[in-house]
């Protein structure tokens, strides 16, 4: 467990955490999502308490933890939820809607609680568990008995979340990373929704042993998602137009082992077109590479927010309420390097064979002027998928590709995603929705002749 690359076997993904492992912590059933990198010194703030993440080391993904009060302060303790369901509100009480929605007799002034904040603190000092505090609150509520069963459950859940929060240990995958970012920092990923991202990967036929060309102006989320699908085969080439690469910090949140990281490379667009073959001009190439690297690091630390940067080298990766300890951090947990400059021999191979597919997520660029340049890099019969926030650039691009007889099977599509609340007698679509997942232009390149 102290070895930080248990993924050296590509095809057996670990089911438990390890030192330096990146994890997603789901607090109170999705109320709060925090990405963290586990180490002995890492901590997480829950409520107003700093809890060490040490107890999470070596635990299986999917484990539940609760905050307990110890002699040295609060700590996270693993526990097994009952098989009856841990979310009481979701258990379903078999009541009909009738009772639930009938508010004819509803009187509730929220002043019926006789326990004070001081009482609760006193209980804590005496070592009461969160559950015990919740039970005490219920026992001391003057109105609890008068509530409907539904309202009682709601009350209990609210208090449980506050006094006995539950932390669920998750392995970060594309969908959870995407969902978390969309919720908290949508602009950093260009409002890319998980269903849209999943369509980009399908439409571009991302598969093992593919060489995937991406223009990723969504913080590395696209690059990471492609690399996850490649699983250490093929390459994802993150290309960029101007002098410095686009940031790809988000790709560092995935738990990629060395094998996968090596397959994530970057290259300026000009290099992909250059006529150098093989090992020509190795010196200038090398020095360029070095420059790029430092440039890249500079670039990364500026436009991306603090949490992520500090997290890449410290404990908590991202955020959603970033908490980093003041204590010194053992640096052994540094994640694998990714996004090296593409070696010249690989570039040559791409030049010869063409990329297997192309994905563009560049919400601030005009699509056609970019596609016009980049299109020749693809192999014939290669599928492509282009994401944009606006319809018009894709329409113009599609029209131009049609006129130029450059692609077929083209379609502009927009996914529409809806989540439901499914509960006995209370089933309906969720009241709030993300109403816009962006547009996708997809198609297949044909041979120009």
């Amino acid at each position: 467990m102290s070895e930080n690359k248990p993924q050296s076997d590509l095809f057996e993904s670990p089911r438990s955490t390890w030192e330096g492992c990146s994890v997603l912590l789901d607090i109170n059933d999705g109320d709060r999502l925090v990405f963290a990198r586990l180490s002995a010194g890492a901590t997480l703030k829950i409520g107003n308490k700093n809890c060490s993440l040490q107890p999470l080391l070596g635990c299986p993904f999917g484990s539940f933890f609760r905050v307990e009060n110890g002699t040295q302060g609060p700590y996270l303790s693993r526990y097994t939820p009952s098989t009856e369901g841990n979310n009481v509100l979701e258990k379903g009480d078999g009541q009909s809607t009738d009772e639930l929605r009938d508010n004819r007799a509803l009187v509730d002034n929220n002043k019926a609680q006789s326990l004070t904040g001081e009482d609760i603190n006193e209980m804590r000092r005496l070592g009461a568990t969160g559950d015990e505090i919740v039970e005490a609150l219920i026992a001391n509520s003057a109105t609890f008995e008068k509530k409907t069963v539904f309202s009682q459950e709601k009350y209990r859940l609210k208090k449980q979340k506050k006094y006995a929060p539950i932390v669920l240990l998750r392995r970060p995958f594309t969908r959870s990373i995407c969902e978390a970012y969309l919720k908290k920092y949508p602009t950093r990923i260009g409002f890319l929704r998980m269903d849209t991202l999943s369509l980009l990967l399908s439409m571009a036929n991302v598969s093992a042993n593919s060489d995937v060309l991406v223009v990723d102006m969504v913080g590395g989320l696209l690059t990471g998602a492609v690399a996850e699908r490649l699983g250490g085969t093929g390459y994802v080439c993150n290309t960029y137009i101007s002098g410095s690469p686009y940031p790809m910090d988000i790709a560092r949140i995935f738990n990629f082992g060395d094998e996968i990281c090596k397959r994530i490379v970057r290259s300026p667009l000009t290099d992909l077109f250059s006529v150098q073959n093989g090992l020509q001009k190795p010196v200038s190439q090398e020095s360029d590479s070095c420059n790029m690297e430092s440039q890249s690091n500079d670039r990364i630390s500026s436009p991306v927010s603090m949490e992520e940067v500090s997290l890449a080298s410290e404990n908590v990766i991202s955020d959603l309420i970033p908490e980093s300890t003041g204590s010194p951090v053992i640096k052994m947990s540094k994640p694998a390097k990714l996004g090296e400059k593409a070696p010249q021999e690989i570039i040559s191979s791409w030049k010869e064979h063409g990329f297997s597919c192309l994905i563009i997520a560049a919400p601030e660029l005009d699509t056609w002027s970019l596609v016009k340049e980049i299109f020749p890099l693809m192999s014939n019969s290669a599928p492509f998928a282009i994401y944009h926030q606006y319809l018009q650039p894709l329409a113009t691009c599609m029209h131009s590709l049609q006129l130029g007889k450059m692609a077929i099977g083209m379609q502009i599509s927009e996914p529409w995603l809806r989540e439901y609340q499914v509960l006995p007698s209370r089933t309906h679509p969720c009241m709030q929705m993300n109403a816009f997942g962006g547009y996708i232009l997809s198609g297949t390149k044909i041979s120009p002749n």
Partner: protein
Amino acid sequence: MLPIDSTKKLSFTRCIRDGDLVIVYERYDNMKAITVCDGSVLENRFGVFKHSDWVGKQFGSKVFSNKGGFVYLLAPTPELWTLVLSHRTQILYIADISFVIMFLEIVPGCLVLESGTGSGSLTTSLARAVAPKGHVYTFDFHEQRAVSAREDFEKTGLSNLVTVGVRDIQGEGFPDELSGMADSVFLDLPQPWLAIPSAGKMLKQDGILCSFSPCIEQVERTSETMRSSFTDIRTFEILLRTYEVREGKLDDFQGDEAGSLGSLPRKRRQRSNEGSNVQESTGPPTVMARPCSEAKGHTGYLTFARLKCLS
């Protein structure tokens, strides 16, 4: 709010008078209904506005505060009212309201029943649809809500078109004296199936019933209950997606990045110019629109049914 009296029909051009209800518009998401009262003032973040300054201005005018801040004074409409009314309950919004009125085939002169009144958002639009000679009978279980609703209809000038009753429609049904008189009935109740037999009794032959429910289980039970004496039972859901408009231009990769692309090998450049028959894009338009991300994902299901004609 409504020009019921035909002599007042061109209401917008007449000037604001003492006692008029006006909608004070600060921003699209910040409006307020105010009854003009000589001597009163409106105070907001833009300063102090004297009502007396408003009298004699046309609806649609911009008026200024002591500090030079300004708001617009608009003539009230049911749509604006829906944005400013006080929420005593969850209210219906414009998409559901519009659809209900069209699907219930409500036209001037109709007699319409509604339960519950709630905040009166739908009621106001129903009143507009039946005006000038029709009538809306609306019922709410809560005495206090009914009182507040009556005050609102007084304020908006709809009292002649709307009668608010206090009644437990699920328990008691609609009043017998309205039997066979209703062109349409609208139900927004937790257990609409309890009120359906009564709704059927109230409706004229071929009259239409609508039930609004947030949960699908309510819809299923309601539809099941309707089947015995209604036909043409249909359930819909309607949402409204809004778009944001901005002025701007996407980075034209070719133009903006000319420097870096200058280093591209000449060969390829030529190919892309000669080989393909593609016209140069003129660049995206300067005004661009895209859907807003946040939206209401669900309001409720609307189930409509028509009373079978058995006579």
